């Protein structure tokens, strides 16, 4: 188990390094002086000269990468051009907003969709199965930005139950804060439920065809024991991996949901930075989200042996 964890962590390190190189190179592809890009049009010659020395712009590209990556590892992601704030605290503050929505939505979706997928597989081709799979495929096909608009139209404007736009932090006023979070969470919850249900069903179907299930049934075990004690444990692995991918993908794609509900999250920060050509923020957001994605998948992989001890034994 310890060896498995070490190997897996060692495998993630080169990926993180190449991700960092890609983000560095991407911003350097923009024509023009990198110092000018990082400070904006209003920079003074003195501050430009100072930043050029700090970025090592008179040295070779690998040295420049080394300086930049060293700063990143020390938490120095640079300074936002538009707000003059340090980039990392800005990202962390926005990340908390996005993370609470994504995390709650994915946990809720998994709690409902995994059992539903297992039951659908158990009753394959029944009306229940066809209904569940149909609903899941439909949910999966509705883009989150439209689903969000529909919920907003119905619960916000028609029924008037929930606040339509804006955001109040839970830390400031937990009651109002929760109300503002209901619709964004519901949007992602409904969409991801479709994704997770189909995966849980497909992997349970694979397992239900195996000999040991027939053996368990032949032993006279009850259907619920066969399904939950024998089939579920082996079927959950692929779904668990998918949940990790969904978590990371949502962090990358949450900008649209944050736009619908005007939530000041990480996705919106990145999109606004693209509009404002705020390159330090763009670079910081991309690096932060990609690193988080790699780390989430690493944690998911490290937990995998809990469901399938064979993985660690190999």
């Amino acid at each position, binding site marked *: 188990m310890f060896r498995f964890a070490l190997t897996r962590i060692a495998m993630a390190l080169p990926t993180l390094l*190449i991700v960092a190189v890609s983000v560095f190179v991407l911003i350097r592809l923009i024509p023009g002086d990198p110092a000018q890009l990082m400070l904006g049009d209003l920079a003074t010659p003195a501050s430009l000269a100072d930043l050029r020395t700090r970025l090592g712009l008179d040295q070779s590209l690998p040295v420049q990468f080394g300086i930049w990556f060293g700063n990143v590892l020390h938490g120095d992601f640079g300074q936002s051009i538009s707000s003059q704030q340090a980039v990392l605290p800005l990202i962390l503050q926005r990340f908390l907003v996005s993370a609470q929505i994504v995390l709650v939505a994915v946990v809720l979706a998994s709690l409902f969709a995994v059992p539903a997928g297992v039951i659908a597989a158990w009753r394959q*081709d029944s009306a229940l199965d066809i209904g569940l799979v149909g609903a899941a495929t439909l949910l999966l096909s509705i*883009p989150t930005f439209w689903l969000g608009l529909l919920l907003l139209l119905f619960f916000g404007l028609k029924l008037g139950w929930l606040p339509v736009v804006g955001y109040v932090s839970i830390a400031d006023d937990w009651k109002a804060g929760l109300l503002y979070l209901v619709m964004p969470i519901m949007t992602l919850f409904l969409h991801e439920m479709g994704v997770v249900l189909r995966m849980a069903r497909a992997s349970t*179907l694979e397992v239900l065809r195996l000999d040991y299930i027939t053996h368990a049934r032949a032993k006279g075990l009850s259907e619920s024991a066969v399904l939950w004690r024998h089939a579920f444990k082996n079927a959950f692995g692929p779904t668990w991996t998918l949940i990790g991918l969904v978590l990371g993908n949502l962090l*990358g*794609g949450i900008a649209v949901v944050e736009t*619908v509900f005007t939530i000041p999250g990480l996705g919106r920060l990145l999109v606004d930075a*693209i509009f404002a050509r705020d390159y330090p923020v763009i670079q910081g957001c*991309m690096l932060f989200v990609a690193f988080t994605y790699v780390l989430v998948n690493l944690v998911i992989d490290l937990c995998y042996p809990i469901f399938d001890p064979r993985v660690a034994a190999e």
Partner: protein
Amino acid sequence: MNGHGRMKLPAPNALVGGTLIAILLATAGTGALWTPYDPLKLSFREKLVAPGALHWLGTDEFGRDVLSRLMAGAATSVWISILTVTLAVVMGTTIGLFSGYMRGWTDRIIMAFNDALLAFPGILLALGLLAVLGANKYGIIVALGIAYTPSVARVVRGTVLSLREREFIAASRVMGNGEGFTMLRHILPNCIAPLTVLATSMFGYVLLAESALSFLGLGVPPPAPTWGNMLAGSRPYIDQAVWLGIFPGLCISLTLLGINLLGDALRDKLDPRMRGAR
């Protein structure tokens, strides 16, 4: 258990999915050549007219006909998706073929970069590339094309690795054919089946990503209509003109539903073990 009697007819998901995609392609084809009204023509006397006999799907805040804009938008979205998928397939196939055929360190280094690019979630890489390329029609094609290249490269490389040990490849070498000839004449044609499956699902992802980017204001700039920017434009008017927010979303959802159903049908056909595992 899987209903062998059903085998003669096409599976229901293939039928529904195929119909939806046929409607999409017909709408896009028509929209490129003809629309009931000029999709860009402003008419302030007909602002926010509800769906009716004259304007079947109503008009928007500038009095432009929604049906015409949806049809023109379909043409734009389908065209962008086709170009993007083609770009990703061409670049990914070249990289995958080269990497898989070279093996050794070349393969390891290329694939390390390839996998690191796959570590960028969802449309994040496309967003970053758009920051460099600028938000416009061509920027979106190149950004999404590059963002989807790594998955193509991975599939092609996998196919090449399994093929190059087969007898017919060895035979081609023994016959004195060069590496390049063997690659193009014998290996490439065998990659077409897995590429077709991948390209079908990629068409859906790209269409969704293009709508999402247009919705964010980073795609095709207005006044040219796309389903994504029509949806974004509908937000301020959503309580007075519901139809503006309903129809573009419905178009995107039905298209994605069609692609998902077709994809399921294709997988059922190719992998008999998963038959019924929709």
